[in-house]
C-alpha cells in the first residue's frame, strides 16, 4: 500500500517542489543579492534590500496596504455577519442562499473588478444616477482612489467572511438561545452576549481569510486605484517589471509572505481544524 501511495503522491510532490517551493527558495536567494548594472542580479550577498523597506516612500505603501486590508476586513465583518445570520436562519433554503453567495465569487475576478470601474467612473452609473436625482451637481470622484479599492476588495472577498461565519452559526446549539430567552434575555442581548461571543472562531477565521488576500492584492488596487493607491502587490510587480529591481522586489515579496505565515500560525495555533 505504501508503494502505491508513494506513486500517487509523487506527481503532486514533484510539482510542489519544482514549481512552488523551489521558486520561493530562489526568491529568497534573490532577496539577498544586489541589483546588477542592467537590472539583473549580482553579488555581493547582502540584506540591504530588506532595509529599504523602512524608507518612507516604501513604508507608506506597507502602511497603506495594512490599513486598507484591515478596513476591508472590518467592513466585510460588519456586512457579512448579518448575512450569515440570515442564511443560518433561513430554514430549508439555506443551501440556495449559500450558493448565491458563493457563485459570484467563482466567476471571473477580473470581470468583477472591471464591473466596479464601469459603475464608479465619472460618467458611470452611480454618478449618473445621483446627478439625475439631483443629489449632486458634478460627478463624485468614486474611482481611482482608496475608496474604490476598499469597495472592490470588500466586494471580492465578502464570501470568504460569510462562509466561516455561517459555519460557526450553524454549529450553534439552538438550546443555548432558548435558554437565554428563558432566562429573560431579549433578542438584542442574546445576540450580543451569547451569539457573538460563540462566533469568535468564525470571526477569527473569516477575518484572516479576508485580510490575507486583501494584503496581497494586486489587481484591485491596480485597476480601481489607478496608480494612486499603490499596495504591496503593485510594488512587487513593479520591481519585477518596470523598475527591474529584482532583489528589492523579492525582499518585499518575502516580507509579505512572512506576514501571511505569521497570521496563519495564529489562526492554526488555536483551531486544530485542518483546512485540507
Amino acid at each position, binding site marked *: 500500500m505504501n508503494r502505491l501511495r508513494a506513486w500517487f503522491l509523487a506527481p503532486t510532490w514533484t*510539482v510542489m517542489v519544482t*514549481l512552488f517551493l523551489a521558486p520561493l527558495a530562489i526568491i529568497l536567494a534573490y532577496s539577498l543579492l544586489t541589483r546588477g548594472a542592467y537590472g539583473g542580479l549580482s553579488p555581493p550577498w547582502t540584506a540591504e534590500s530588506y532595509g529599504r523597506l523602512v524608507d518612507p516612500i516604501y513604508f507608506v505603501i506597507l502602511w497603506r496596504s495594512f490599513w486598507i486590508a484591515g478596513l476591508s476586513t472590518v467592513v466585510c465583518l460588519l456586512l457579512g455577519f448579518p448575512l450569515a445570520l440570515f*442564511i443560518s436562519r433561513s430554514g430549508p433554503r439555506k443551501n440556495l442562499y449559500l450558493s448565491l453567495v458563493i457563485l459570484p465569487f467563482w466567476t*471571473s475576478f477580473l470581470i468583477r473588478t*472591471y464591473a466596479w470601474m464601469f459603475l464608479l467612473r465619472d460618467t458611470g452609473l452611480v454618478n449618473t444616477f445621483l446627478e439625475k436625482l439631483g443629489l449632486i451637481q458634478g460627478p463624485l470622484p468614486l474611482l481611482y482612489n482608496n475608496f474604490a479599492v476598499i469597495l472592490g476588495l470588500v*466586494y471580492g472577498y465578502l464570501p470568504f467572511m460569510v462562509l466561516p461565519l455561517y459555519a460557526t452559526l450553524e454549529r450553534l446549539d439552538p438550546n443555548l438561545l432558548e435558554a437565554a430567552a428563558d432566562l429573560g434575555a431579549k433578542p438584542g442581548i442574546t445576540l450580543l452576549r451569547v451569539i457573538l461571543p460563540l462566533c469568535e472562531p468564525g470571526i477569527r477565521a473569516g477575518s484572516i481569510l479576508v485580510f490575507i488576500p486583501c494584503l496581497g492584492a494586486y489587481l484591485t488596487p491596480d485597476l480601481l486605484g489607478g496608480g494612486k493607491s499603490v499596495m504591496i502587490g503593485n510594488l512587487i*510587480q513593479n520591481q519585477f517589471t518596470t523598475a527591474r529591481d529584482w532583489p528589492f522586489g523579492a525582499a518585499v515579496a518575502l516580507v509579505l509572505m512572512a506576514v501571511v505565515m505569521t497570521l496563519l500560525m495564529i489562526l492554526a495555533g488555536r483551531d486544530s481544524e485542518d483546512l485540507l
Partner: protein
Amino acid sequence: MKRKTPALAIYALAAYLFLHLPLLILAVFSFNSSRFTVWQGFSLNWYGAALNDSQLIESSWNSLIIAIFATAVSTVFGTLCAYGLWKRNSKPLATSLYLNLVTPEIVTGISLLAFYQWIFRFLRVQLGMHTVILAHVAFSIAYVVIVVMARLRTVDVRLEEAALDLGANEWQAFRYVTLPAILPGVVAAALLAFTVSFDDYVITSLVAGVNSETLPMVIYAIARRGVNPIVNAISALIVVGFGCLIMISQRLQST
C-alpha cells in the same frame, strides 16, 4: 429562535443585490447601442465587435488550450494526491498545498518568473504557452485536492478493506470501488480548476511569452485604458459561461 425579523431579510436582500447587481448591470449595458451610460437602445453590435476581434479570438483560444491542458494534468495529479492523503496524511505535503493556496498570487507569480529565468540559463527555452500551463498546474492542484478530499471524506474506509478482502489488490480497490464513488467530485474539481485557470491574470501576465496572450490579459489591457463596452460583452459571455460551469460543479459536489 428561528424567527426571521423582516429587518434581517431586508438587509439580506440588499446584500445579495450588492453581490449580484454589478455583474447584472454590466451585462445589461453590454446590449446598449451607445458606449455611454445613457441607454440609447438595444443592440448586439458590441457582441459582434467582440466576436470579430482577432486579438480577442486568438487570446481566447490560448486561454482555452492552456485551461484544458492545465485542468487535465492538475485533475489527475490532484485526485491521486487527495486519495494518497486520505489513506494517510502527509503533513509536509498538506502544508505545502495549504501554503500554495494562501500565498498571494503576486508572490507565486514573481517566484515562478524568477524560477523560469534561472532555468533558462541552462535550457534553451523561453516564456510561452508551456510556461503558462506549468504555472497553472502548479496553482490548480491545491483546489482539486480540496474538492476531491471533501468527497473522499464521505466514503466509507471499510469499502476498500472489503474489496481487498474479496481479492482485489490496492490498485483495483481504488479503481473499482473508490474512484466510482468520488467521480462526481473529480468532475466538479476539474470544472473548478478550469475556471480558475481560464480567469487567471496575475500569474499568467508574469510568465506568458510574447505570443501567448490570454483572454484576461487582453481584457486587462483594454480595461486599463478605460471602460469599453466590448469588455461588457465579453464579460457577460464569460460570466454566463463560468456561472454554468460552477453551478454544475456545485451540483456534482452535493450528489
